[in-house]
């Protein structure tokens, strides 16, 4: 890990140069990007000298991940190697898909270095309660567990089905499905010795209503997938986990990998800040009206993701999230994103009428 913002920025520039060369060069490049450069009017191969030059790319249109043939995304260097196909979270209709070889392993091995061995002991058993299926997360968590000498049980939750039930007003069905998921998790916690959990805030809450997670022997919990405002985080840490279980919030997706959080201190008042796994991915908090501009520190803006790996180049993709731009910290000397929540959440919170 680089230890100063200056060094981190230089490392990022060098990495951005290298990855753009990789994807745009005829020897190693990706058909999609080589073709793109032909019509772009500029030559990324020659002209990208550092991360700032990536601002010359428009915001990546995620829609093309729904229908562009996978072959178009295979870097020449990866030809003839079978790939995995990962899909994004809970969207309905044709999902966005990304192909991958080793990225998820590299990302999660790096993430493993951020974990405290006491809360996430090496060896033993893990339990993931959440979306498995075609998602990268399921394989990534199992790899993370294996990488730390552990093995992982899985209880699946299909978020697409839950969203459909809620959209159709079938609240009782959605609730019954949640109970079905929690029943399975309780059974495993009851019969097996689990030291680490990976789940969503809602499922963690629901689980804690059935048993004491700390008393069940769990030492550490990863939690991600939905918004965790400071009050929710505090509630999870102090009450759901009874202040006795390590808590690691995570922010990630199929396109990025996994962002780590800055360990919470009392001054943070339970406000979580995530730091992208630079230089392999970069999160910027940008002005929603002009995504080339960063917002000021401590201000809300839209989250923009750039992924820079040999397998996948994704410039300036606007996530469906907003967050606060946070300053670099000792552990991660680059900008962070705080208080992540769905984009537009603030506007929905205006007036609720008389009642």
């Amino acid at each position, binding site marked *: 890990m680089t230890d100063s913002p200056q060094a981190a920025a230089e490392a990022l520039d060098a990495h951005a140069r290298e990855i753009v060369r990789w994807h745009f060069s005829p020897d190693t490049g990706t058909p999609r990007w080589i073709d793109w450069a032909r019509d772009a009017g500029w030559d990324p191969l020659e002209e990208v000298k550092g991360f700032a030059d990536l601002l010359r790319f428009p915001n990546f249109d995620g829609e093309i991940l729904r229908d562009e043939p996978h072959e178009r995304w295979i870097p020449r260097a990866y030809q003839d190697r079978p790939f995995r196909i990962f899909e994004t979270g809970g969207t309905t209709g044709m999902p966005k898909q990304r192909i991958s070889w080793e990225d998820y392993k590299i990302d999660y091995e790096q993430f493993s270095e951020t974990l405290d061995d006491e809360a996430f002991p090496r060896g033993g058993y893990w339990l993931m309660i959440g979306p498995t299926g075609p998602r990268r997360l399921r394989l990534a968590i199992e790899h993370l567990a294996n990488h730390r000498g552990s093995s992982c049980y899985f209880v699946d939750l299909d978020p697409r089905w839950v969203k459909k039930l809620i959209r159709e007003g079938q609240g009782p069905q959605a609730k019954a499905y949640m109970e079905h998921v929690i029943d399975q998790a309780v059974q495993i916690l009851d019969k097996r010795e689990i030291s680490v959990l990976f789940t969503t805030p809602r499922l963690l809450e629901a689980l804690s*209503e059935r048993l004491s997670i700390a008393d069940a022997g769990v030492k550490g919990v990863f939690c991600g997938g939905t918004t965790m405002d400071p009050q929710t985080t505090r509630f999870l840490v102090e009450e759901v986990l009874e202040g006795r279980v390590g808590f690691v919030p995570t922010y990630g997706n199929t396109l990025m990998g996994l962002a780590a959080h800055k360990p919470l201190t009392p001054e943070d008042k339970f406000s979580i800040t995530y730091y992208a796994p630079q230089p392999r991915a970069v999160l910027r908090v940008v002005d929603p009206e002009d995504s080339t501009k960063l917002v000021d520190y401590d201000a809300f803006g839209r989250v923009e993701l750039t992924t820079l790996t040999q397998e996948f180049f994704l410039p300036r993709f606007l996530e469906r999230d907003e967050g606060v731009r946070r300053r670099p910290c000792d552990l991660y000397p680059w900008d962070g994103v705080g208080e992540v929540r769905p984009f537009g959440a603030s506007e929905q919170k205006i007036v609720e009428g008389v009642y």
Partner: protein
Amino acid sequence: MSTVNVPILRFGREYESLDVNEVAGYADGAVLARVGQANAGLIRRDLKRVGEHARALRELPIVRLIEICREAGELFLNGTLPLNDAGDEQSPGDYVAALSATSGLPHTLCRANARKIHTVLTGMPGILFGLMRGMAPQVLDSGMGSSGGLPVCYANAADALGVVLPSNSPGVNSIWMPSLALKTPVVLKPGREEPWTPLRILRAFLAAGLPPEAVAYYPTDHEGAATILEVCGRSQLFGDENTTRPYANDPRVEIHGPGRSKVLLGADEADDWEEHLDVLVASVADNGGRSCINASSIFVPAHADEIADALARRLSEIVPRAPDDEGAKLAAFANPKMAAFIEASIENGVAGGGAEEVTSRYRDGERAVEAFGGNYLLPTVVRCASVEHPLANTEFLFPFTSVVEVPQDEMLARIGPTLVASAITRDEAFREALVASPLIDRLNLGAVATSHVEWDQPHEGNLFEALYKRRAIQRALDW
């Protein structure tokens, strides 16, 4: 006035949330309260232990609870009470000033509502007498006793009463207060713009000696409100039809929606309508016209034009005054969008034909006015040609009524669900028909304003019957 932090009360534990809603004065935008918000999971977690909390309350004999209510009433009206653990306190004057600044109610109406709450708390024996139909309340101490010479046995139907409160008028708090005397803890979600009154009532109860485990105060969002309604065995839900519709068929939830209260003038009194004008004015305009018990329609068999005109003339005398003016009768809209929405609804209704806005004859200018830093709607009388007109049976949050000519023998078929009906008639046959009607919750016979409340006569459900199940009981001799 300075900003105070309003905490969450968790059955005896005060909790300062990291999620805060600011409540500001409507006139100057100054933030008066930072109200901590409870997340739904926190509420659900607390309510798992509500049985234990109920036991702490039920250990107190009913006579002691009645005494606590009486003392709480005095403290509520006259005491200086804590707002939070940090030492912020609230005098009666502070309460009125804060409530007025955030809700739009003038000080006079804030004080009138406070007196109403005081009356209910100090008059709890009479209220229990009404709710329990004369049965000695000591029955609740053991669950058994006798009434009218018969053995009776009552079991608790719920360990907590959930209450999702509105912001429109502090007086509505009177409806849940007997729950504590009835040995059932309360779980309150205050209205977004009115955190003050329910908190002050709870503080008064606690200062009077109520076990802190008996009360919860959760300012929260829709999800938190839904959690309260889902988990509490019995609840009261205040809100418009969109809010209450999902619970319309849930027998555990008592719905307090729009009242659509009415004055019905009998044919026998129609020619003497002028004698009843004061009752009509009070029915429409008491409490700033903000209650569900304010008349939103007046059905008359004859003279509708004259009645509408005379009522309009009288109501047009009510104009905005400074919030602390002793003569103030009209409330400002704390939320200007609500005033704009109502104004547009009335304008659209009149523009559609079949209705005449009578008050405009006596009004200088527009209905919607800005005065003393607030948005006001001036009292409005609409003469509707038929009951089917969209404005004929619509309730708005200010002094508004329709006047409709309906033959007496058609009135009952046309009134629809009516929270309060004041029937100004001596016609026995008409009275009998009204008494038999399931559409009316509270029936006032004679020249009584719809807004007049006798507290031993509960409306919209009987809290005692909601909180207790009567059980058949038989006892063997010598057992």
